[in-house]
């Protein structure tokens, strides 16, 4: 996929949790395989589990099994004051990959996606057109994960496809292949 001009792919379902936690995360560090003490607007991948820090007291947690995540995180946080909400069916995700991925996303997203400003490991809540999204760049390759509300998915997909048509002549390009 790295050679492709542009590819837009729906991603498999995933468990997702929204974690709100007021306590000092420095002393907690890690909860059930999720690294909480990472800079705001970054992500951290550990095996099948991914942590995204959206703000000073807000995280998104991803992984394959909701029950296991709920158990592991709650066990670590114990009787601290926190909320852990299962939002696995609220959102769904697309992968946007290829050498034109950044151009296509920037067709509707105001973030500066230059490698210096948005390097591997970056993640942030932002906008795509009128829809709120969470944009995640797990690695150095040109592969971005877009999380959006389920009811916004058709809008987000159509928006990305519309811009991607500009780049379809690039070799290896495909939409929802």
């Amino acid at each position: 996929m790295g050679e492709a001009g542009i590819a837009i792919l729906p991603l498999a379902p995933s468990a997702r949790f929204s974690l709100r936690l007021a306590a000092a995360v420095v002393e907690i560090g890690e909860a059930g395989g999720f690294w909480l003490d990472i800079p705001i607007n970054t992500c951290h991948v550990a095996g099948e589990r991914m942590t995204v820090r959206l703000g000073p007291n807000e995280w998104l947690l991803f992984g394959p099994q909701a029950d296991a995540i709920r158990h592991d995180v709650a066990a670590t946080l114990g009787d601290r004051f926190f909320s852990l909400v299962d939002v696995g069916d609220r959102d769904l995700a697309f992968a946007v990959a290829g050498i034109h991925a950044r151009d296509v996303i920037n067709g509707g997203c105001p973030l500066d996606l230059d490698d210096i400003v948005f390097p591997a490991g970056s993640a942030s809540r932002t906008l795509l057109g009128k829809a709120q999204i969470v944009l995640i760049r797990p690695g150095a390759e040109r592969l971005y994960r877009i999380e959006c509300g389920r009811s916004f998915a058709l809008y987000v997909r159509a928006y990305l496809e519309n811009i991607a048509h500009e780049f379809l002549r690039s070799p290896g390009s495909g939409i929802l292949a």
Partner: protein
Amino acid sequence: MLLIPCPHCGPRSELEFHCGGEAHIARPTNPAATGDQRWAEYLFYRSNTKGVHAERWLHVHGCGRWFNVRRDTISDRFVTADQIRSAEEGS
């Protein structure tokens, strides 16, 4: 388009923000004992500064936090941005 300096996220597009108007407007501590004139001043009266003034912004499509900035209303330049601290932390 303004480039607004969020204290958590750095400079971001105005599209991601919601403006909360003039900052440092204290709610009367005892609304029941507050007269109509004072209440109207709290709700509606603003200083309409020409020059640098303090205002609130919410990074709604970002970190989700409120913060204060000082902006020059003539040039639209942002002078400073500060986190809003909770009462326990002090301000």
